[in-house]
């Protein structure tokens, strides 16, 4: 898939870093400001998709990316699943918020909610990246 003109490439390289860190901010502060695991994850995947679409990429490299995105996605949702299971394994309830609540209105104040946000953020960003990569790989008639 060929990339776009030189101007778009440089601007996309500059912007992708900003978008990525904005997404990470939204994920980490999900329990204080609006946003959270889903919004942040989608913004992070937006940063990667901007790079892929703007710069274009040859197909062999992107296949490796797809496997990594798939692995990262399973890792993210496995982390979220582990947090859920911890409550069950320790004999208490399924989705118990077992961590301390800390002082309200500061970063580490909501028990397992920030961890869940991180897990969901990884899962959503990797999932949407691999969806767009899968669509890019669809050729006229051949695609792994």
């Amino acid at each position, binding site marked *: 898939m060929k990339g776009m003109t030189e101007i778009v490439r440089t601007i996309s390289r500059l912007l992708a870093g900003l978008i990525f860190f904005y997404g990470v901010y939204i994920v980490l502060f999900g329990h204080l400001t*609006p946003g959270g695991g*889903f919004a942040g994850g989608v913004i992070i995947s937006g940063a990667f998709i901007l790079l892929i679409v703007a710069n274009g990429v040859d197909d062999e490299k992107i296949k490796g990316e797809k496997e990594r995105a798939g692995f990262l996605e399973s890792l993210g949702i496995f982390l979220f699943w582990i947090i859920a299971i911890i409550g069950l394994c320790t004999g208490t309830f399924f989705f118990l918020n077992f961590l301390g609540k800390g002082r309200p*209105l500061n970063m580490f104040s909501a028990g397992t909610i920030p961890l869940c946000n991180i897990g969901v953020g990884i899962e*959503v960003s990797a999932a949407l990246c691999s*969806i767009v990569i*899968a*669509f890019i790989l*669809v050729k*006229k008639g051949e695609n792994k």
Partner: protein
Amino acid sequence: MIYFLCGLLLLVGLSGILLKRNLIKIVISLTIIEYSLFMFLAVVGYKQNALPPIVKSVTEEVNYVDPLPQAIVLTAIVIGLATTALLVALAVRIYEKYGTFDIREIRRLKG
């Protein structure tokens, strides 16, 4: 009046599915139906002159909007995205196999 407009958007989407023969048009109509449902949910959860459900300070008592429909809409938006992505993937592969997006053409070729 607001509910009526949400219902109208739902019916526009439904008419798109029943009338149109192009696969992509059907996917678009399904997405429009889902958008009308999200709007209906957000409208049901609204409370007159209330603030968004973000707690600014622990002390004073503030009148907030209902957070439950917003949680439901957040979940439903990502379900809608997942369904649309799978539908578009199927449509692309069907175009690859049949060479057209027209349902009646596909049914005729399928035999």
